[in-house]
């Protein structure tokens, strides 16, 4: 009995074993069929598709080792890094409005931290991320990067570079010939806010504007009267411009918005208050330094969605002179009705906000850990977080911006 039982058990085990072997063999064969036969390979390079509205450039200043700044190319739909280029020492970047190229303004020294200084404006192919022209500049301002130290005109034929070497001026670069076509001296004024194809405006130390028209081939400069007091309530350099018509919304430290039509004869409209748009009291400026309320602040603290006219501003609660404090909320404002549309609470304070210019817009914010947050503009919901994309994300550049 005992023997036969054991025999039967053994037979059963054998059959199970055979079955198992058979199954695994089938699986193996199936796996072989799925896996291609491993063959020798050649190195190749990925080529990106043409630029899409949701492929953005992200500027990383890398402040703790600023010689190593970089520009990341990001697929914002997937929250995926597609590549990067180096952007040395407080570098800046603009993109051709049609996405045919992007230009990095950067500075290097021949022996690393010493030797001959070289200011450069490499033009990049946006699909291969290779340099198509490596232009040497006469100089550029070395300042913690602000978007409007570098600007491009509406048809992409001119790049404007703010310089402080040796005095305040804007170099106009012809992107077809890759040459400086002219240098416009602007004593007491800084930055470049482009309007249309033939002009830009700078902000001046007296609280007025300098308008530079290039239409005649030479630079014609006009000045507006001062419209704000820089010592009591300065306007942010990071105020957004709609390049096609030069409409700009200059935002002041206290939260006033000056709608301005930039041109050879810039017109400044009466200011409205962000706080009043939200049903609050207008915020005081430098005359009441202890007054705590909601205020705009951060680095690239504002972004404009051109088609809808919606203005996004990073806001925080604080006293006056907290204009660089990261925002705890984004306030979405309608520039036509001067009304608050929505307040978006941020999971962590952000020093930058960006937006794409299509009809399914995405918003971007950062944090101090170098994370990039990607939001759906219409729902106000976060859709991706790219952990530690870089060290110091300062701003984004989207197609058509």
């Amino acid at each position, binding site marked *: 009995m005992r023997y036969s039982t054991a025999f039967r058990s053994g037979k059963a085990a054998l059959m199970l074993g055979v079955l198992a072997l058979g199954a695994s063999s089938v699986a193996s064969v199936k796996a072989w069929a799925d896996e291609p036969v491993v063959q020798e390979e050649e190195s190749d390079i990925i080529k990106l598709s043409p630029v899409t509205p949701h492929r953005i450039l992200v500027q990383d200043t890398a402040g703790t080792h600023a010689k190593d700044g970089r520009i990341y190319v990001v697929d914002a739909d997937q929250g995926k890094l597609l590549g990067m280029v180096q952007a040395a*020492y407080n570098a800046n970047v603009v993109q051709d409005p049609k996405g045919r190229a992007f230009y990095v303004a950067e500075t290097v020294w021949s022996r690393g*931290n010493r030797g001959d*200084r070289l200011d450069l404006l490499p033009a990049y192919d946006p699909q291969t991320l290779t340099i198509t022209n490596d232009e040497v500049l006469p100089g550029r301002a*070395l*300042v913690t990067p602000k978007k409007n130290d570098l600007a491009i005109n509406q048809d992409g034929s001119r790049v404007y570079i703010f310089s402080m070497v040796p005095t305040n001026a804007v170099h106009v670069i012809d992107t077809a010939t890759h040459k400086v076509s002219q240098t416009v001296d602007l004593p007491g004024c800084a930055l470049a806010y482009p309007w249309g194809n033939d002009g830009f405006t700078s*902000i001046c*130390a007296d609280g007025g504007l300098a308008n530079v028209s290039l239409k005649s081939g030479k630079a014609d400069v006009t000045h507006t009267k001062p419209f704000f007091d820089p010592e009591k309530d300065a306007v*942010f350099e990071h105020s957004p411009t709609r390049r096609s018509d030069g409409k700009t919304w200059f935002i002041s430290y206290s939260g006033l918005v000056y709608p301005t039509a930039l041109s050879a004869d810039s017109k400044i409209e009466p200011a409205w208050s962000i706080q009043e748009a939200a049903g609050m009291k207008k915020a005081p400026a430098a005359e009441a330094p202890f007054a705590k309320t909601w205020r705009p602040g951060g680095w690239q603290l504002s972004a404009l969605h051109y088609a809808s006219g919606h203005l996004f501003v990073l806001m925080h609660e604080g006293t006056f*002179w907290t204009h*660089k404090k990261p925002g705890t909320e984004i306030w979405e404002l309608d520039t036509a009705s001067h009304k608050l549309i929505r307040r978006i609470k941020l999971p962590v304070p952000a020093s930058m906000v960006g937006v794409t210019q299509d009809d399914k817009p995405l918003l971007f914010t950062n944090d101090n850990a170098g994370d990039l947050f990607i939001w759906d503009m219409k729902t106000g919901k976060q859709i991706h977080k790219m952990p530690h994309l870089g060290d110091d994300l300062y701003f984004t550049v989207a197609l058509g911006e």
Partner: protein
Amino acid sequence: MLLSDVSARANTSGEKESQSRNLLDRAVERLTRHVASRSSRRSLLGRAGAWATFGALVPTLPVMRASAATPSKPAPKFKAPTPFAAEAQTKDPTACNYWRYCAIDGYLCASCGGGVHSCPPGTSPSPTSWIGTCFNPGDGQSYLVAYRDCCGQDACSQPMCLGTEGDQPSYRPQANNDIIWCFGTGALIYNCSTSVIVGNAS
């Protein structure tokens, strides 16, 4: 109780007052006579002398006194003109709230091998700078502070400080802390920031 009620009551009780004064006089008289009959002039002088001699030592005894206690946060001697000044301290130049750093932006040279007005070895001070105005809570005066960068090596990378009082955009370069203030040095590479007193602003 209203004041008029109090004065009305005082006026109607004059007689009672004179009676209570007599009572008081009699009680004091009884007490002095009692003391005099039970103590000698010598013992009085002795006790008074002892108090005069040793009483003076009482304040020197090691007791806890409110006036000698170190308060956790001393009351400010001077009224601070700004929120930064209200929280500023005068002892530790490696902390962001050191009074001179009201508008500093960057790495403190005091934490990078240099000092409040000294560059670390291997770097050189910029001859140019922008000027801020900071309030010293120690003496109640405001001072002009030149934020001179130390240049020639890349960022020192110690924890950074960002003071923004009086900081204006770069179209006001004389009051902007974003510009690399290394003009006039060999390479315009920023290492750290000093804050040098250049005058009294009060």
